[in-house]
C-alpha cells in the first residue's frame, strides 16, 4: 500500500515537472511574440553573443566568421564597409587610384595611430602583408594574396613610397581587389609586438593570445575570461573614434543557443547572432528579429567517383544526378526547415552577387519553385536516360531499379537539427521514385575528412563567399582545390566528367584582363559545373540575428560580418 502511494506520488511529480517544462517554454515564446523582451540599460556597453571561444584573434590567422566579426571591430584596414554595405575608405584617404591597365593600385593613407600611440604607416602594411604570406605564419587565407604580383625574392610587389603612400602591383586586373583591402588578412598588425612574441617562428599568433595587445580598430581587448567572456574598450586612437559612442563591447563566449537566447530574453545581452531553430517561428514576427542578405549557397554534393555511378557514362551519371536535383522540393525545405525566407536556389552562384563587370551576376538552371513532386515525370525520364528501369506504380509513385537492384544512396551530414531535417526532406522526395536514401550522421571532424577525401556518395555542403565575386564560389571545384569535395578532376572513374577544361577556365578567369570577357568566362564555368549536377544547390543563405529595440547603428555585411562600433544604445 505504502509503495503504491509513493509510486503514485512520484508519477504525479514527473507529470508536474513535465508540465512545468512545457508551460515554461510556451510562456517564453508567447512573451517574445507580443512583448518586447527585457532591456539592458547600461548604455555605455553593448552586450553581444556571436559564438564560443575564438581560435585566433590575429586577423591573419582567423578563419571563422565570428572571428572575422571580432577582427573588424578591433582592427581596421585601408578600406571598410559602411552601414549600407558599400566599401568606404578607412585608413585610406580615398578609394585607391587604379592605373589604366588596372594592375597598379596607389593608396594615399590618412595619418593614424596604433592603440599604444605609435604611428601607423604604409610600412606597417608592407610588413603585415608579407608576414601573412610567409610560410611560417601558415595562414589559411594567404592565397588571397595570389592576385598580388611578387618580387624576385618572393615578397609581395607592394611598396611604401613614403610614410603614407602605398603602391600595390597586381598580376592581372582583379575586379574584387578593393573588397580584399577590407578583408581581415589585409589588416595591419603591430610588427614589434608580433616579432617579440614569436622569437623562433613557431608561435605566429602568440602576440594576441591574451588581453592587452596593440590593435588599431575601434576597440581593444581589455579582459579575456577564456570560454566565458571578452571585454573590449574603446580605442581613442581609432581613426574614427569621434563616431564611437560605446565605451565597452562585451562578448559572451557561448555556443549554447538555449543559454544565449535566455540571456537575451532576460536583458543580459543586447545582440545574439543565433536563435534556437524551434524558437524561430515564434520570433519571426518580432521587430527585434532581423534577417539580412548573405552571399552563400546551401547545397548537397555527389562524389563523382562513387561506386553508385559504376557502369554509367559520364552523361548518364549527370542525368542521374540531375534527376535527383529535380526531385528535391526546395520550397518545402525553405518553408519548413529554413523558416527565415531563404530563396530556393536555381544556380550555384547565389543571388545578389556581382559579375565583376558592374552588373548583377544572373544565372538559372531550372525552375527552383517547380522542383519536387511537380517535376517527378521529368526526373523519371532522366533516370531512364541514366540507364535505370523505372516502373510506374500507378499512384503517383514509381519503383526505380538499376541493373535489377533497388538504388540506395548513403547521405552523410554532421550532427545538427536543421541539417538532419533537410536530409529527411530529401529522403522523402527520393522515396517518391523508389530510391532509398540512408542518413548517416557523422562526428564533425570525421565528416569534414570523409568529404575532403571523397569517402562518401552524397553529402551535405555549404559555402559562404569571402568576397563578392563568382570566382570565389567557382574556384573551389578546380581539381587543385582542397574544397573540391565532389572530387571533380580527382578521380579516374569512367563516369566522372572530364575536368581539365574547367581547371583551365578558372586559370583563364584569373588572368583575363577584359572584365566583360571575364564575366562571360564565369558563366561558362558555372554552366560547366551545373552540367555535371555533382553539386545540387538547395537554397541561398541569409543571416539572422536579434537586436534589442533600444539599440541602433549595428550593421552586417553580406559576408556575415557585424560592425558594432557605431552602435547607439538608449536607456529604454
Amino acid at each position, binding site marked *: 500500500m505504502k509503495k503504491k502511494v509513493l509510486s503514485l506520488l512520484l508519477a504525479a511529480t514527473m507529470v508536474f515537472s513535465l508540465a512545468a517544462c512545457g508551460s515554461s517554454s510556451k510562456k517564453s515564446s508567447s512573451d517574445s511574440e507580443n512583448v518586447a523582451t527585457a532591456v539592458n540599460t547600461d548604455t555605455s556597453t553593448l552586450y553581444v553573443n556571436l559564438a564560443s571561444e575564438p581560435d585566433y584573434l590575429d586577423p591573419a590567422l582567423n578563419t571563422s566568421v565570428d572571428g572575422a566579426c571580432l577582427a573588424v571591430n578591433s582592427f581596421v584596414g585601408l578600406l571598410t564597409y559602411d552601414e549600407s554595405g558599400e566599401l568606404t575608405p578607412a585608413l585610406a584617404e580615398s578609394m585607391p587610384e587604379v592605373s589604366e591597365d588596372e594592375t597598379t593600385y596607389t593608396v594615399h593613407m590618412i595619418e593614424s595611430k596604433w592603440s599604444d600611440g605609435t604611428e601607423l604607416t604604409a610600412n606597417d602594411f608592407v610588413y603585415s602583408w608579407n608576414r601573412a604570406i610567409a610560410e611560417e605564419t601558415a595562414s589559411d587565407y594567404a592565397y588571397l594574396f595570389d592576385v598580388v604580383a611578387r618580387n624576385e625574392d618572393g615578397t609581395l610587389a607592394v611598396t611604401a613610397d613614403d610614410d603614407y603612400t602605398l603602391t600595390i602591383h597586381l598580376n592581372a586586373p582583379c575586379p574584387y581587389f578593393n573588397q580584399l583591402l577590407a578583408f581581415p588578412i589585409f589588416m595591419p598588425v603591430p610588427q614589434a609586438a608580433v616579432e617579440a612574441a614569436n622569437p623562433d617562428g613557431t608561435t605566429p599568433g602568440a602576440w594576441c593570445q591574451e588581453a592587452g595587445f596593440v590593435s588599431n580598430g575601434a576597440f581593444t581587448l581589455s579582459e579575456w575570461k577564456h570560454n566565458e*567572456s571578452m571585454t573590449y574598450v574603446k580605442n581613442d586612437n581609432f581613426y574614427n573614434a569621434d563616431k564611437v559612442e560605446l565605451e565597452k563591447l562585451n562578448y559572451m563566449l557561448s555556443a549554447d543557443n538555449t543559454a544565449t537566447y535566455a540571456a537575451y530574453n532576460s536583458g543580459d545581452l543586447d545582440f545574439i547572432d543565433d536563435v534556437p531553430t524551434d524558437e524561430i517561428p515564434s520570433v519571426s514576427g518580432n521587430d527585434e528579429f532581423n534577417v539580412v542578405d548573405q552571399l552563400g549557397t546551401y547545397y548537397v554534393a555527389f562524389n563523382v567517383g562513387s561506386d553508385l555511378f559504376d557502369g554509367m557514362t559520364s552523361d548518364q551519371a549527370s542525368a542521374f544526378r540531375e534527376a535527383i536535383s529535380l526531385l528535391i522540393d526546395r520550397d518545402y525545405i525553405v518553408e519548413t526547415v529554413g523558416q527565415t525566407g531563404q530563396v530556393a536556389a536555381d544556380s550555384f552562384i547565389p543571388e545578389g552577387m556581382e559579375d565583376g563587370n558592374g552588373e548583377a551576376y544572373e544565372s538559372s538552371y531550372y525552375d527552383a519553385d517547380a522542383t519536387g513532386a511537380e517535376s517527378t515525370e521529368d526526373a523519371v525520364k532522366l533516370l531512364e536516360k541514366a540507364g535505370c528501369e523505372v516502373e510506374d506504380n500507378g499512384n503517383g509513385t514509381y519503383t526505380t531499379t538499376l541493373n535489377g537492384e533497388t538504388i540506395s544512396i548513403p547521405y552523410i551530414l554532421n550532427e545538427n537539427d536543421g541539417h538532419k531535417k533537410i536530409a529527411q526532406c530529401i529522403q522523402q522526395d527520393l522515396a517518391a521514385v523508389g530510391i532509398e536514401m540512408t542518413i548517416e550522421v557523422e562526428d564533425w*571532424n*570525421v565528416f*569534414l575528412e570523409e568529404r575532403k577525401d571523397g569517402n562518401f556518395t552524397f553529402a551535405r555542403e555549404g559555402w559562404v563567399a569571402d568576397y563578392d565575386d563568382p570566382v570565389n564560389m567557382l574556384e573551389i571545384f578546380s581539381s587543385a582545390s582542397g574544397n573540391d569535395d565532389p572530387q571533380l578532376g580527382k578521380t579516374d572513374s569512367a563516369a566522372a566528367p572530364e575536368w581539365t577544361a574547367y581547371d583551365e577556365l578558372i586559370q583563364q578567369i584569373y588572368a583575363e584582363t577584359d572584365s566583360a570577357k571575364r564575366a562571360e568566362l564565369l558563366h561558362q564555368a558555372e554552366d560547366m559545373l551545373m552540367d555535371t549536377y555533382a553539386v545540387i544547390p538547395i537554397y541561398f543563405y541569409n543571416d539572422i540575428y536579434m537586436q534589442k529595440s533600444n539599440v541602433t547603428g549595428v550593421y552586417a555585411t553580406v559576408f556575415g560580418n557585424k560592425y558594432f562600433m557605431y552602435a547607439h544604445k538608449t536607456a529604454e
Partner: protein
Amino acid sequence: MNKRSIYKRNNKFMRSILERECESKLLKYIGKRVLLAIVSILIVSAITFFAMNAIPGGPFNKEKATDPAVQAELEARYNLDKPVPTQYVLYMGKLIHGDWGVSLKTGREIWPDITSKFAVSAKLGISAMIVATIFGIVLGSIAALTRNKWPDRLIVFFTTLGTAMPSFVLATLLLLLFCLQLKWIPVYNSANPNYVLPIIALSVYPMAYITRLTKTSMLDALNQDYVRTAKAKGVSRLKLIFVHALRNALIPVITYLGPQIAYILTGSMVIENIFTIGGLGSAFVTSITNRDYTTIMAVTIFLAILMVVANLITDICYKLTDPRIDFNN
C-alpha cells in the same frame, strides 16, 4: 619507582614503537602507491596517445579546407609528420621537462590554460561537494532516524528525483525558474558571474547519492551490537548517533567521495555550457571534437594524476576512520 610507573613507561615505549612502525608502514605504502600511480599514468598516456591518433579526423580539418602547403607546415611544426610511436616518445620527452606544448587549435600554451580552467572547475566542484556532503549526511541521518515516517518519505522522494533527473534538465529548469521567471539571478554577467545555480546543479546528484548511502549504513550501524551496548550503558542519544553510529556509517560515504571528488573537479561539460563557465569539462570535450591532440593528452594526463591522488587520499582516510584496515594487505 613503583610498578604502576614502570608499566606506564613501558606502555609509552611500546606505543611509540607501534606508532613508528605504523608510520613507516604508511610511508612504505604511500611510496608503493606513488610508484604504481606513475605506471598507471604512463599506461593511460600511451593508450590515449595511440587511440586518439587511430580515430579518424585531424586537428587541421576545417569547413573551408586548409591549404596543403599550410597543413604541411603545421604538421612539421608539431611533429605530426613523424610516425606515431616517434611522436609519443617526443611528446613524453618534452612532458618530463615540464613542457605541455601548445594547443594545435589555438596555438596557445596549454599549461596555463589548464590550470586556470582547473581553478574554475575546482572552485565549483569543491563548493558543490561541500554542499552535497553536508546536506547528504544530515538528510541521510534524518532519514535513518525517522525511518518510515514522513521526513524519511519526503527525503526518499527527493533523493530518487535527484538521482533520476539528468543534469541538463535540472540546469535548464534552474535557469528558467531563477533567471527568467523569478529574475533573481542574471543568465549572464561577465563582471560577477553567479555560481549559485551551477553549484546546485552539480551538487544535487552526489547529494542524493550520499543521502541514500548515509541512510543505509546508518541503519546498519544502529543495529550493531556495539551501538546496542552503548545504548544499554546509557550513552545519550545524540552521542550515540553522532559519535558511535555516524563514524562507522561514514566509511561507505568516504569510499564514494574519493572518486566522486576527482570526477566533479574535472568539470561537467553540460553545466559549464549552460551557465557559460570556462571550466575543464568543456575544454576536454571540445579538444576531442577538434582532435586537438596536445590538449587531449594534457587534460587526460592531468585528470589521471588527479584521479590517482584522490584515490590515494581516500585510502589513507579509510585507515584513519577504520583501524581494522591494514596497510600490508
